[in-house]
């Protein structure tokens, strides 16, 4: 399958190619090339099964990583196409016409990360959340514990649950600073 990657990297700027398993490859491409790349993979290279569209929040670099995993059922081979988009003005070309389920994935990403996919059907309808008025919850800067404590009347807890400090207090009492942090 290295042939395929070599062939593709002549046309599309593939970088960070990782051969994870004999039948699984990761590659990064630019935002502009992504949709045309997966279209070519689907139509010409036999990657007919769309597995997953996922997003990773790299808040340190101010980037979102979108991962499209495609599967070739006849040759039993997977390829994962990564592309980095800007986190502040998150938007990506919609690919809903390629596979039916991509529209659902894009609805979820819009709701959970706030990524815009212009033209994707039913994008602004509620998918999972209802009446959400905060920043999208899956972003790294959304603190779910703080939100939960402020909103949901937490029951008082008797003591800490953090195993690390607890074990430290038991096993290395000399190094322990006397507090059980949460």
């Amino acid at each position, binding site marked *: 399958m290295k042939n395929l990657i070599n062939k593709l990297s002549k046309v599309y700027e593939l970088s960070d190619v990782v051969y994870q398993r004999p039948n699984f490859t990761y590659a990064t491409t630019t935002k502009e090339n992504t949709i045309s790349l997966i279209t070519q993979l689907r139509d010409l290279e036999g990657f007919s099964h769309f597995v997953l569209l996922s997003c990773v929040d790299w808040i340190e670099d101010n980037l979102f990583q979108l991962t499209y995993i495609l599967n070739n059922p006849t040759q039993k081979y997977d390829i994962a196409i990564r592309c980095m988009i800007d986190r502040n003005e998150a938007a990506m070309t919609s690919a809903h016409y390629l596979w039916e389920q991509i529209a659902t994935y894009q609805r979820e990403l819009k709701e959970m990360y706030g990524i815009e996919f212009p033209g994707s059907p039913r994008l602004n309808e509620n998918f999972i959340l209802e009446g*959400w*008025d905060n*920043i999208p*919850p899956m972003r790294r800067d959304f603190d779910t514990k703080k939100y939960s*404590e402020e909103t*949901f*009347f937490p029951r008082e807890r008797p003591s800490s649950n953090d195993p690390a400090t607890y074990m430290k207090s038991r096993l290395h009492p000399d190094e322990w600073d006397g507090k059980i942090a949460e």
Partner: protein
Amino acid sequence: MSEEKNIIQPAEQASKFVNPLYAKREVTGPDGIKFIVDPLRDYFSDQRPQIYEPNSIPVIEKFLNWARAESLWVLGFGTGCGSIEIAPLLTPRFDAFRYGVMPRPTPRQSNVFIISGYLSIKTLKRVVRSYEQMPNPKYVLALGSCTINGGMYYDSYNTINRLDHYIPVDAYVAGCMPRPEALLAGFNKLKELIKDGKAENANEYAKNFDWYKANQKKIIKDWNMPDYNW
């Protein structure tokens, strides 16, 4: 960690992401009066429930309570993962029908609401609605540790922590997941409570309606109900 440098204050940014469907808008009524509609406000569940006093003759009330205890009709609403243990409860190994427990598909005909596990905000809205539709002597059996203190979802942004702040709870069945035997024990406990006349939580809900409603409104922001076309 490098994350902390980049954290943007949520309050500054949140308005950017709010769904445009939730924005307040001005609507002209059929009689020409303009008014502002807030889609996140509750226009529906404002009617107060009534308090129904128990029968004043103790012997009759005791008999009726016995009948209520021995015929528990459960609302068939699986709200969380605990509902996977409802099916074994009604099948050969555990067979709760022996104790007068029977599933009922409509809230109007059921007396017991089993909250089977965690409640997301979206489900809580339906739970409150179904609970208010049930007729007066009504009981709530809360299943799993998620309903007691949030359980393993204690820090989740979408599941409630304490059920008894939103609807009154008669009995808790702890565990994750509680076994069907534990659920049967919960039913027995509930029967004891009913026979002693202590399960009057429907009236408690009516008495403390404002407190419960305020708690519900704190987290359920979108009260819009699905509409039918007649």
